[in-house]
Structures are given as C-alpha cells and as structure tokens.
C-alpha cells in the first residue's frame, strides 16, 4: 500500500512586520497637516541619505535607518550611543501612497504624504441670485 501525504493548506497571514528584534531607537517626529497632505519630520542624526529605508506596506509607513558614528576610535567618555532607528505609523486611506516623497538634510528626514484628490477640501462658490 502506498503512503500518501495530503498537503495541508496553510494560509499565510498578510501581516507586515511591525516589530524588530534588534535594539533600535525611536526617533522623535513632528507631524503636521495641511490641505495638501501630511508632513512627517524625523530627527535621524548620523544617518546618511543612502542608509534610510522608507516602506509602505498594508497602509503602514516604516522608517528604518542606520546611523554611523564619525569617530574611528572608541570614545572614553560617552553620553549617547547610535543604534538603528525604527518607527512605524499607520496611514489613513486618504493618503495617496503613489505620491509619497522624502528628503534628507543635516540628519533630518522629511516625508511628504499627499492626500488623495478625493480627500482634499473643495471650495464651492455660492452664487447669490
């Protein structure tokens, strides 16, 4: 008699990785809104432009960055340590994910999250007859 194994169908859940196992820093952010969209500003000192990763998956914005010290020797007096940065935000469905833009300057990351056209406020002119 031949032995057969029936493969069990397992459904992999589409849950994005919202945790990171390694030690990370949570960068402080400013988030403010304008009629055009949201702006996220994050302090990421020690991060070069190429070492920033910004992902959007399942409406979750992930900021990952690796900071590098400029010192080549170990400090004798230490007040801070640089670890990778990691922080995530839930995006609303009003965000136009195709048009997200980011820029990096002097260790500060600026992300522009524009709103969808349908979510923007519309001015309706009222004519008085």
């Amino acid at each position, binding site marked *: 008699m031949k032995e057969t194994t029936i493969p069990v169908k397992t459904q992999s859940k589409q849950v994005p990785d919202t945790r990171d196992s390694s030690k990370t820093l*949570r960068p402080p952010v400013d*988030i403010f809104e304008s009629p055009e969209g949201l702006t996220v500003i994050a302090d990421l000192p020690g991060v070069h432009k190429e070492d920033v990763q910004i992902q959007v998956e399942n409406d979750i914005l992930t900021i990952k960055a690796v900071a590098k010290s*400029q010192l080549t020797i170990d400090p004798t007096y230490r007040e801070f340590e640089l670890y990778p940065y990691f922080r995530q935000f839930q995006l609303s469905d009003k965000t136009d994910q195709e048009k997200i833009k980011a820029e990096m300057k*002097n260790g500060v990351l600026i992300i522009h999250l524009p709103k969808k056209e349908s979510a923007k406020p519309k001015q309706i002119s009222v004519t008085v007859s």
Partner: protein
Amino acid sequence: MRRWWDPIQELEQLKREMDEIFRAFSEDVFDIPSFRFSFLPGVSARTYPLVNIAEDKDNVYVEALAPGIAPESLEVSVLNNTVRIAGEKPAVKDVKPEAFHRSERGAGKFIRTISLPVEVDADKVKAEYKNGILLLTLPKAESAKPKQIAISVN
C-alpha cells in the same frame, strides 16, 4: 595641594559627584530603547547637545549629536581646555499649532561648554558638521603631549 578651604571648589566637587550619581542611575533604569529620547532639545533645560569624547595620541575628538541645526548658526570656540558649542535648531515654520498631530522634536538655541582633560591648540581646531553630527578635532597643545626622555647609561 589646597591652601585654603575653598567653598567654590567644594561646591564644584559636590556638583560633579551628584552628576555622577544621576548618570549611573539613569543608565540603569532608562536603558530601554523607548526611553532614549535623549537627543530631544529645547523641551526642557537638559544637556544639549550630547557628546562623545575620544582621545588618541595627538588629538581629542568631540562628537556632538545635533540634528537639523542651521549650519550658519553653529559657533565653536576654544579657550585653553574648554570648548563652547552654540547654535540654533530652527522650529518648523508657517504651521499653525492646531495643524500638529505630533510635536516631539524640540527647537531653539543652545550653548554647551565642555571641559577637556587636556589643553588644546585653539588655532588648529577643525569642526565638521555632517548628517546631523558635529565632529570637532582638537589637536593637543605641545605642552600636553607626552615627552620621551632619553636615559643615558654610564
């Protein structure tokens, strides 16, 4: 060698000891990543910018964590063995307070004076601001460098 009881020096010593106690305490208790909001300036009067100091044979290196500083506002001055770092982190402009969802980054002017373990040559100090980190390279003064003394054997 102390000739008199010097109250100023006693106070200075006490302050240093207190600082040391609090530093040890905060390292134990707040050694959790989410507590490391340490480079947040301006919100309260805390030490800013944070620095790491390293030393080799010829130089002292000071690395200061200061993201988003207007580079033209940075001022570094050196006197004997003290370094003074001053500058300004500009606030986000033209945004109404009610438009903010989160406001965690501080802003404002800062000054910090750091005492170095040795005297440095003020004329040859180099300062470089890159990716939000200020790196100072301070060559040691000739008088502070170790001297090799030749021993003649008769």
